[in-house]
């Protein structure tokens, strides 16, 4: 009888792709703000846009963080449990 090895994936591993997305967000945000402040004509518009963008980003991240920390990230996900669930479902 073929049996699958027990594969356990810690849920915090989801932070790896998520961290990459956040890194790209920060990188592109930096370039965006740099362009606004470096190349725009001298006016309040570019400063205002920068403040709105940075403020909005901080609010989104703070709210997201409040939700994220409410979850238990020490849990582990057993792949065989998932397969058993799938086979029982079928």
């Amino acid at each position: 009888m073929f049996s699958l090895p027990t594969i356990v994936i810690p849920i915090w591993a989801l932070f790896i792709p998520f961290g990459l997305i956040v890194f790209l967000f920060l990188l592109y945000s930096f370039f965006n703000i740099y362009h606004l402040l470096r190349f725009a004509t001298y006016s309040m518009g570019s400063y205002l846009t920068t403040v709105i963008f940075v403020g909005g980003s901080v609010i989104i991240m703070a709210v997201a963080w409040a939700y994220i920390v409410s979850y238990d990230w020490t849990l582990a996900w057993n792949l065989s449990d998932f397969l058993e669930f799938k086979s029982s479902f079928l």
Partner: protein
Amino acid sequence: MMDLQHLPNALPNEKVIMFMRRNWTTPFGIFIFMFFSLAIPLVGFVIFYDQINNWLTTPFIGHVLILVITAYILAIWLFTFLEFTDYYLDVWIVTTERIINIEQKGLFTRVASELHLSMVEDTTSEVKGIIHTFLNYGNVFIQTAGERTRFIFKDVPNPEMVKERVVKLTEDYKARSKKE
């Protein structure tokens, strides 16, 4: 930052006559896109509240869902401001001596070109479509002497008035040059 009172390579007595960006409909369209991109999932959440709330409290599915929702909101927010920056950095400046065209193409390409008024051969305005006619915005084409390439002011407000002013400035410049 570029100061309109101190343009790069400014000529003596050069004055800024017109400073243009695309019509307000461009940033409005960007923010409408952001609004619907955020509102549609929110409406879905309200309609299927029980089901989604159940998923959010389920281990693993809830963990994945909260990260996906965060990534989605960050992506929409970033995309909106990248598009806005693209709009904001596209400018056309008409002075008493020249026309300056600055275009931001994406985040890493920037094209800046200028055209002396002595090179202007023909100016054409174009208002095409119901919305453009109703809101009075469109394109202005500046044809240069001897070259096929044209300067295009895209979706600027009052294109007819812009065309008239460019023609007037060009005539004034040429008359001034003859006197000198």
